[in-house]
């Protein structure tokens, strides 16, 4: 078997093997489903995480590619990023279609590794200045290993060389990835990997003769590479959450899967319900017994849960709800991100009832709010919703969560010994802070009635007007009581800038990156990301009212966030909306363009 017949030295000019240092690299791997795009991305992520890089990986963007096509994307950089780079720097394409799909997004100096087994790359698809490396992955894998399957490992061997990874790191990474395979199963993968490296040798790509180099970075401390879904579920579990019920729905199913894997080992229960109505009511049943309980869904499922959420607000039942928002309305675009459940989460349901909506911006906050929501639900005895956007399925590199620092607040619970000291127990007893101590079935001397009808302090149904007003006011007071514990907005940028930019969720990181880059071009903005959506906190209203113009950037056609802010007291004339609802996520470059475009239209005075 000679590899000489595939000599690509003619293609890869020795001058290009300068190992150009790149510290911010966006990579796409595309092909037919089953080609193993995800495997190569996973291997590359691991290899670059080991080198000290931060990885942002998105799966959602993959369904941009239709039909049998699948693609995976990642960005390696030196700081935590919330989006891909503006352009694809490195494309590994298993077929022509993958190149066609990526074509418009390829960077001028991109590297395109193309599987040339079936055909040569048609002209005109990649920028003239891009470097194309045709490699017959599939033919090589079949010829050497008799199976097309091994082209991933082969591809990784070659790609690792192209980005300047030492052979021992490439090999260690592959071994680690396939650690569950037996030695016999691993062996052909290792051979495939070496074939890939041998192929690189024929092209002179080795050692410091790589196309790009990603230098090893200093240790960043202990880090985790995790999605928002897993992080929020982890937070719930660490905060003592022990009961979860859900119904499968994209993109929230991962929360249920995570907990089904991890909760039973510590005495928890995970139930897959027959529908979302059952899911939230199973959770209510668990919460009635004093267990910390949670459900999770996406927009359509949350819509079904609306009555129950209001019921928990009325009946003062502590539950946590995760909403992994997706593009609506109706079934919408299940795999596409949006922030268009804000109306429903903040103002949905019949009647007026206390509840809280938190909105994390990255997996660190997802973890933090998984804990906080569980504590707040107990403290305020009401439903607490955690609203995730694309952060739910995207993986970020963040500092390892400090489990030992987590504090558990069980709220006001009355014990048997405390009950022995009092004459009478009333479940809905009036109190200055609106919170009445809870007692649970199994406790002597604390029997009570829980109902979604209006009721008196004992839980007996009544429509007496005076009682009605006292009870409504008592429930509303609970939110005032816990308000100091609700996360305030984070702000960045130039606080003296006349233009403010308000956003929520994953957009915070994207806007921050866009603003950093715009600042270098002389554009000044002041950024503000809400972390509590309901109740709307005063700091956000003040922010809007203190700037001449505020761009409210959000992923919804209906400007739901802007509308929420207006109704909470923000000056309507200050607000200019930047809306996106095409199902795609912003890159920082797109965000820069959107901000500059709006600035041209609306800026109160010319920018310096």
């Amino acid at each position, binding site marked *: 078997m000679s590899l000489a017949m595939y000599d690509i030295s003619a293609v890869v000019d020795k001058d290009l093997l300068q190992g150009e240092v790149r510290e911010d690299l966006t990579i796409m791997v595309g092909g037919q489903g089953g080609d193993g795009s995800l495997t190569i991305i996973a291997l590359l992520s*691991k290899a670059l995480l080991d080198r000290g890089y931060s990885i942002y990986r998105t799966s959602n963007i993959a369904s941009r590619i239709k039909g049998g096509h699948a693609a995976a994307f990642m960005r390696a950089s030196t700081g935590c990023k919330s989006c891909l780079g503006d352009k694809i720097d490195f494309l590994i394409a298993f077929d022509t279609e993958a190149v066609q799909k990526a074509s418009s997004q390829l960077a001028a100096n991109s590297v395109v590794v193309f599987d040339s087994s079936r055909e040569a790359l048609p002209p005109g698809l990649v920028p003239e200045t891009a470097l194309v490396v045709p490699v017959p992955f599939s033919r090589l894998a079949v010829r050497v290993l008799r199976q097309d399957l091994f082209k991933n490992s082969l591809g990784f061997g070659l790609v690792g060389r192209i980005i300047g990874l030492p052979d021992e790191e490439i090999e260690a990474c592959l071994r680690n990835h396939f650690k569950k395979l037996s030695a016999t199963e691993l062996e052909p993968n290792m051979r495939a990997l070496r074939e890939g490296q041998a192929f690189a040798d024929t092209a002179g790509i080795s050692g410091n003769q790589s196309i790009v180099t990603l230098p090893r970075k200093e240790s960043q401390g202990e*880090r*985790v*590479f*995790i999605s928002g879904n897993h992080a929020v579920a*982890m937070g719930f579990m*660490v905060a003592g959450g*022990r*009961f979860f019920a859900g119904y499968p729905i994209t993109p929230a199913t991962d929360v249920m899967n995570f907990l089904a894997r*991890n909760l*039973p*080992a*510590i*005495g*928890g*229960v995970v*139930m897959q*319900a*027959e*529908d979302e*109505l*059952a*899911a939230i*009511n*199973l959770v*209510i*049943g*668990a*919460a*009635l*017994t*004093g*267990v*910390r309980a949670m459900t999770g869904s996406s927009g359509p499922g949350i819509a079904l849960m609306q009555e*129950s959420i209001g019921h928990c607000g009325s009946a003062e039942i502590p539950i946590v709800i995760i909403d992994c928002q997706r593009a609506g309305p109706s079934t919408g675009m299940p795999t596409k991100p949006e922030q268009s459940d804000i109306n429903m989460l903040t103002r949905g349901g019949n009647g007026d009832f206390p509840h809280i909506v938190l909105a994390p911006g990255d997996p660190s906050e997802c973890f933090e709010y998984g804990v906080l929501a569980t504590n707040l639900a107990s403290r305020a005895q009401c439903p607490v919703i955690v609203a995730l956007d694309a952060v739910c399925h995207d993986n970020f*590199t963040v500092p*390892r969560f400090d*489990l030992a620092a987590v504090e558990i607040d*069980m709220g006001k619970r009355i014990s048997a010994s405390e*009950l*022995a000291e009092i*004459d009478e*127990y*009333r479940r809905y007893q009036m109190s200055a802070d609106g919170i009445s101590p809870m007692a*649970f*079935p*199994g*406790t*002597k*001397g*604390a*029997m*009570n*009635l829980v*109902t*979604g*009808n209006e009721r008196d302090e*004992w839980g*007996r*149904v009544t429509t007496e007007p005076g009682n009605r007003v006292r009870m409504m006011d008592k429930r509303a007071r609970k939110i005032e009581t816990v308000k100091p514990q609700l996360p305030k907005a984070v702000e960045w940028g130039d606080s003296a800038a006349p233009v403010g930019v308000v956003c929520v969720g994953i957009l915070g990181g994207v806007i921050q990156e866009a603003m950093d880059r715009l600042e270098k071009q002389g554009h000044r903005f002041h950024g503000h990301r809400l972390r509590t959506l309901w109740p709307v906190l005063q700091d956000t209203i003040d922010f809007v009212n203190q700037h001449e113009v505020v761009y409210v950037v959000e992923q919804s056609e209906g400007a739901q966030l802007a509308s929420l802010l207006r109704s909470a007291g923000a000056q309507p004339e200050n607000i200019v909306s930047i809306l996106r609802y095409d199902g795609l996520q912003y890159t920082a470059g797109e965000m820069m363009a959107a901000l500059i475009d709006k600035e041209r239209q609306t800026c109160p005075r010319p920018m310096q």
Partner: protein
Amino acid sequence: MSKTYAIGHPIWCAGCGHFGVQAAIQHAMNQAGVELHNTLVLAGIGCSGTVQNNVGAYGYHSMHGRVLPTAIGASLANPELTIIAAGGDGDGYAIGGGHLLHGLKRNANLLYVIMNNGVYGLTKGQDSPTKEVSVSAPEEEPLDAMMLGLSIQSTTFLARAITSRSDQLNRLMLMGLNHARDGKGMAFIEVLSPCVTYNDTYPQWMKKAYDVDADPEYCNTHRGKAFAALYDLVQQSRIPIGLIYSGNHPSLQSAMVSEITPHHALDQEHSERVSKHLDKVLSAYAV
């Protein structure tokens, strides 16, 4: 001991069948010796959805149709409790019909009582899924929950009683409560409980009732034979009452791998074992 809420008085019309159902539930609780503080009575929405106020235990008024999932959630979260769920035929067979299928399928340790009067009494007389001759949809057949229950392989206790035959009702209610408390699974009892105001079916139902308990030929431990017998009886416009089926199948609780932590243990949950597990889970994401 602290005083708690004053036990409520039934709000039903004079002559309502629900009085008998409540009496049977209380009789069963007394006979079984359950403690009020260890009992959670959950009820749905409708006339029947007030029974939880009248027995002195922990009471929960669920949302319309959702009493069964709530009861299952509570029974899983604290298996030490005695769980009694109650509701009407509209609550259990119409708006909550989907949950009934899955409740029967899951076989959680609880007693579920449906007070079937064939009508929506609280909203003044609309037809329910068990109305025999529906005015709005005369071509529809009434739903038979016992035959439905028999068709699901994991049911373990199916019974139907009629409120005016209190001896049989009391006996079945106590058997059902013990079935749930003994960890055998869900006892499902439908009580024919006529609405004297909107669907006074006492005379028809008494005439049509066929007591399988009194039939030596009837086999309540064989699912197939019971189903065939019920089918024939229904074809003859009879309403089978009595212990329809009793069998064995692992309960939801016994089938769950997890050892459930009751709330009172949760405060001490941060044991070394839990911390170790949590740390291990997180370490899978470490880079």
